[in-house]
């Protein structure tokens, strides 16, 4: 091949040649407030170093109470058996599977943000990926509770794993429930690794600011990171490889979850669009949960300059897109049920929309298909109250989606004599409430001990991080000085340490 197609473009365009050169269409800066690198570090690291605020203890108290409820409910269930749940004869899969799918779905946003958006060069992901990934891990943990305890004899739950044994007993490899074990656990492991690899430079930053035992602990987890060129090289390589590995996993996990339903021949479950439609729904619900958490966290922790309104707006657009995809899938299912002329399919869908669970169906439709359409309006997608309310509406809607799929298809099966109405018991309800306790306990611990924004990555999207930034500004030192001067007031508004002198580490009062 000739060299031409790869020669730099610099010699292609000369302004004096008279073509209409337009000025750069610079996107608005991703980090607001004209923060310097040091101020970004301070802004994020401070929250892991300061004295624990009383409000955190209050929140933690509430969350861990929820966790205690979860423990109690699980103990009660293990002692008494699965019968304490509302699952009955036609509805063998009740709330446990609904909650499992609900939580797994939520656990999709983090790795989508960190892996797929990374491959798509969406640099805005850097402000939100850390918290979203953490949330992903916690959501997957919450999800795993339900199938684990639904097996009934939780003490032999390891039978789900293909462990060689003298009884020659193996799990059923043809069952998608077993595929779930593999899919969810590999997703969890890769997401955890991905999260941890991304954390290493930031842990080293914290380590360098810490003293005593704290420094030692952080040093252990920072794996001897010095920020050397070689370290960065390895880091970026492994980050890319992990992103490549995590990308198919984002799709595979919820596809396998959808197989749990779709491989059966139960009307309403057995439909081929389930895998992509479940994935879209998972991203939809995951983003809604990230939004719920970050809208609050950015306010409380004063991170509005890092997690800006632009970031939130982009998340809202993803919610609009995935919500519409899910909505179109609902309509496609309905249309195909009619088009197929299979009477069972037709009945299943008519029964969904107009049967005893019509209320749930229409909650689902309103929350998932209609409400996100509000995000067509720029004003609404940039309004914090609207997006906060909608994110909760979407989470409710996505829970109902799983409820509608699970319960409406099962409660009237092929044998009308066994038709029944499903109602949850108080144990169902409190177990689900308790899973939120687990989720928020873990999330609060994360907020307290781990830098909640990827410090190093956010710095990387600042214009100053561009190797050519100083091309027109001398050697860089000249340009740096005035910048620091400008930024003083911005940091004052944040967390208070009065002297933002470059050399002083923030006080850990």
């Amino acid at each position, binding site marked *: *091949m*000739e060299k*031409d*197609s*790869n*020669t*730099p*473009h610099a*010699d*292609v*365009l000369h302004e004096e*040649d*008279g*073509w*209409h*050169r*337009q*000025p*750069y*269409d610079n*996107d608005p800066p991703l980090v607001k407030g004209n923060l310097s690198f040091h101020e970004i570090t301070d802004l994020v690291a401070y929250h892991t170093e300061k004295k624990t605020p009383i409000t955190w203890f209050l929140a933690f108290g509430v969350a861990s109470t929820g966790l205690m409820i979860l423990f109690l409910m699980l103990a009660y269930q293990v002692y008494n058996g699965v019968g304490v749940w509302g699952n009955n004869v036609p509805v063998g899969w009740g709330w446990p599977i609904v909650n499992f799918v609900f939580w797994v779905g939520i656990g999709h946003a983090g790795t989508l943000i960190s892996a797929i958006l990374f491959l798509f*060069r969406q640099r805005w992901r850097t402000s939100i990926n850390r918290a979203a990934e953490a949330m992903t891990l916690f959501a997957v943990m919450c999800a795993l509770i339900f199938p684990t305890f639904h097996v009934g004899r939780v003490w032999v739950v390891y039978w789900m794993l293909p462990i060689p044994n003298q009884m020659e007993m193996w799990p059923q490899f043809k069952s998608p429930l077993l595929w779930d074990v593999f899919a969810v656990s590999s997703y969890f492991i890769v997401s955890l690794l991905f999260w941890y690899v991304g954390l290493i430079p930031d842990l080293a930053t914290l380590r360098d600011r810490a003293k005593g035992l704290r420094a030692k602990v952080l040093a252990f987890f920072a794996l001897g990171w010095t920020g050397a060129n070689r370290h960065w090289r390895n880091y970026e390589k492994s980050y890319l490889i992990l992103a490549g590995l995590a990308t*198919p996993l984002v*799709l595979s996990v919820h*596809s396998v979850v959808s*197989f749990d339903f*779709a*491989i*059966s*021949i139960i009307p309403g479950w*057995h*439909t*081929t*669009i*389930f*895998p*992509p439609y479940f994935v879209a729904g998972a991203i939809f619900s995951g983003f809604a949960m990230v939004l719920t958490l970050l809208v609050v966290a950015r306010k409380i922790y004063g991170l509005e300059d890092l997690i800006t309104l632009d970031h939130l707006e982009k998340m809202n657009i993803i919610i609009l*897109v995935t919500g*519409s*995809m899910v909505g*179109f*899938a609902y309509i*496609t*299912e309905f249309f*195909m049920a009619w*088009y*197929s*002329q*299979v009477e069972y399919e037709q009945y299943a869908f008519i029964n969904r929309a107009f049967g005893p669970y019509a209320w749930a169906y229409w909650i689902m439709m309103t929350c998932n298909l209609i409400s996100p359409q509000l995000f*067509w309006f720029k004003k609404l997608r940039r309004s914090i109250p609207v997006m906060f309310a909608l994110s909760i509406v979407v989470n409710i809607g996505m829970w109902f989606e799983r409820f509608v799929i699970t319960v409406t298809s099962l409660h009237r099966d092929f044998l009308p004599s066994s038709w029944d109405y499903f109602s949850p018991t108080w144990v169902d309800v409190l177990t689900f409430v308790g899973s939120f306790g687990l989720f928020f306990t873990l999330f609060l611990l994360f907020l307290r001990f781990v830098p909640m924004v990827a410090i190093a990555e956010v710095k990387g999207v600042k214009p100053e991080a561009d190797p050519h930034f100083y091309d027109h500004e001398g050697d860089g030192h000249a340009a740096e000085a005035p910048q620091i001067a400008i930024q003083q007031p911005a940091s004052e508004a944040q967390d208070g340490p009065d002297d933002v002198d470059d050399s002083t580490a923030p006080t850990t009062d």
Partner: protein
Amino acid sequence: MAELKRSSLLTWLVSPFQPTREHADARFTYRGSSTLYLALLGLGVALLIVSLVGWAVDAKQFFFSYVVGWSFALTVTLGALFLTLIHHITKSHWSVVVRRIPEAMTWMFPVLAVLSIPILLGMHDLYHWTHEELYDPTDPHYDEILAGKRGYLNTPFWLARMAAYFLIWTFLSYRLLKLSLRQDLDPDRSIPKKQRRTAAWGIPVFGVTTAFASYDILMALDPHWFSTIFGVYIFAGAFFSASATIVLLALLLQRLGGSLRGIFTKEHYHDLGKWMFAMTAFWAYIAFSQYMLYWYGGIPEETVFYRHRFEHGWQWHSYSLMFFHFVLPFLILLPRASKRILPVLGVMTGWFLVIHWFDIHWIAMPVYDVFYGAGHAGFSWISIACGLGFLFFYLGLTLYHLQRHSLVPYNDPRFVRSLQFESV
């Protein structure tokens, strides 16, 4: 300032605006000779005319072969429209220098609308559900299932839907093309915003029309069979083939047309190569989901689709599809180098187009086999003439359309960033 003028009525069909290339810098325009596109066009038209001989010889075979070739061209065009839409909605930089190629490809819609005439004439042979006797309860051919679907699958409604799809697609393409070409003459800063707005409503409209068009054109060939993922399957193939076609057209413009040197760089090829790679995996994901779920369920009215494709030699087509649509291209395109070594990428574009045509052939042709009892798999010469005819015609016409204007939207505010783009 010059104005964008509409072409005369006949030219409008192939290229809706009068040439604007003289306003552009010479480096941005087509520098090759007209032989390239005229040869491709001539070859394409000749092959299509040859295929018309097939009409006289074996009309039923011709209609099926033709619908395969025509759907092949239509899906590539839909993929190009989708790429244009996401380019605008995501405000992406890298694809600004690429943009004119998919834009030109979308102007195949009106041409394909005209070229649908043989399909309309062959509807009775192509679409079993057009037979009146199926709906007469006293007739021995009465078909209860099709009678139930008649509200959707009936000729007037089908024609109305097709007309609606083509009107919508043409309107979308026309609007985006017009805004884009106007940008060359008038660097109006409001144009990118208008393009983005069009893309915003265009994407959901595109999604719905593509899904239903795939049911109407291809799924309806086998009117008893249904699959909710079918629209996604066709969309995956469309994106798959369009990304390859863009690379192929860019290579033709550069290698044979001597244009866009140093503008359309290896970096842009690399990114398009990534799309090709991603789409081979996405297609496999969708194809596997459909196959696995039907295989596992084992319900006769669903698995019949695959049964037909696993007998009478069609099984070799099915296996080939798995290996040549997914396994091999996936492995070949996985390394970074193969997306940056242009001869390799060039070979892969040809591969992609052939295998995409093969995919459509695999969807449509077994139906012919079932209804008209050819009894064995394989390729009719009519299918090959139609397939290659549509391919060459497509490339030639797109190049003809491209060379009338600047090959890059040099007034796009993101143009410079696109030139400076480096793929990682």
